[in-house]
């Protein structure tokens, strides 16, 4: 049962996929599983859909684990999924959101990479696709989107951890999301979750030009990180990707923003300088709990500010 599932430990891909099946079986009126593609190595790519009915409702997208070694993100995704099923009908904010909108949650965005971190190299970040003419494997799936693709802020070297790939959407893990988002056509908020360094970021990453909605995104970020900090005092900085960290081209939320998804954000979860990607499992639940408050803030704003 998902009630006895241990949310305070890291899990393998198989365990997470089993968890998703259990959750859907326990909540057939609310949750369903959709396969949006297959990874380079042939693993299914699943998303969970939380919906209370209606056709093609406006929707919120959340993904975790596009960088496979950021284990706290997949673990948080599992916790979010359970939280949604627990809180619907109990928490007025989430209930209002789900009464009007759908939520899509992709817990393991890069299944090949994630499996590889469990079997061979805990530090693996990229996909596992082969590049012709190179001995190096994988593409950074957060540099492979069709937004400023190939501009400074990504590497053209297949051996680099920020290798952008041969062309935009070359990675099936990216292309599957692109196809889904385009086919759906009514996604209003897109939140991509990474770790670490405690940041909430909005477009752009490839240019220093401000996004047309920068003022609103900045205000919303401020509210979200305030909500996040209210639980354990964890401090997040916020801003555009290029200003808050560095230039990054071909990134997820630059593409989603270019598709007209105004509320496009990317998180960098805990921590700030002790464990990095090796966050102890004891911190999974606090991390997920505080992040959830920020997510709720963004989702509620999306509900209340239709466009």
């Amino acid at each position, binding site marked *: 049962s998902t009630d006895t599932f241990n949310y305070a430990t890291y*899990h393998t891909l198989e365990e997470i996929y089993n968890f998703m099946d259990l959750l859907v079986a326990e909540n057939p009126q609310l949750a369903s599983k959709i396969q949006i593609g297959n990874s380079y190595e042939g693993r299914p790519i699943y998303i969970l859909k939380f919906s209370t009915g209606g056709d093609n409702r406006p929707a919120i997208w959340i993904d975790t684990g596009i960088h496979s070694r950021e284990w706290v993100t997949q673990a948080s995704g599992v916790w979010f999924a359970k939280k949604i099923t627990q809180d619907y009908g109990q928490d007025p904010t989430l209930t209002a959101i789900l009464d009007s909108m759908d939520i899509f949650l992709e817990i393991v965005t890069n299944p090949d990479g994630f499996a590889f971190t469990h079997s*061979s190299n*805990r*530090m693996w970040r990229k996909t596992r696709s082969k590049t012709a003419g190179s001995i190096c494997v994988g593409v950074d799936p957060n540099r492979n989107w069709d937004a400023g693709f190939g501009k400074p802020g990504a590497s053209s070297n297949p051996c680099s951890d920020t290798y952008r790939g041969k062309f935009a959407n070359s990675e099936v893990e990216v292309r599957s999301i692109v196809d889904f988002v385009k086919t759906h056509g009514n996604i209003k908020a897109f939140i991509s979750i990474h770790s670490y360094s405690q940041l909430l970021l909005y477009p752009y990453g490839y240019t220093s030009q401000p996004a047309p909605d920068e003022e609103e995104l900045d205000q919303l970020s401020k509210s979200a990180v305030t909500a996040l900090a209210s639980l354990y005092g964890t401090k997040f900085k916020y801003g555009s990707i290029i200003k808050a*960290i560095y230039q990054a081209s071909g990134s997820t939320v630059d593409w989603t923003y270019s598709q007209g998804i105004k509320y496009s954000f990317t998180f960098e979860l805990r921590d700030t*300088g002790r*464990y990095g990607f*090796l966050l*102890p*499992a004891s911190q999974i639940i606090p991390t997920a709990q505080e992040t959830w408050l920020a997510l709720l803030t963004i989702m509620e704003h999306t509900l209340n500010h239709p466009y």
Partner: protein
Amino acid sequence: TEDFVGHQVLRVSAANEAQVQMVKELEDLEHLQLDFWRDPSRPGTPIDVRVPFSSLQAVKIFLESHGISYTIMIEDVQSLLDKEKRQMSSFQARAQ
């Protein structure tokens, strides 16, 4: 399974733009096999880098000789990974 024995994660503090550039130069030296967990960006923003044991001496000498300050964020990556693995195994054993 990849072995990370002796790998350290250093937290580098570049005080000015010139030091940021120097750390970026390190990034280009592929033979050092550095893994930047937080890339060099601007002065005052921490840079975290995993350094294999075989490159530790060279990297530390480089940083020290250029007056770039750093601290050791993770003393031995493998020992943290072992702990993580033990925690997962003990949970799985209990679950079974």
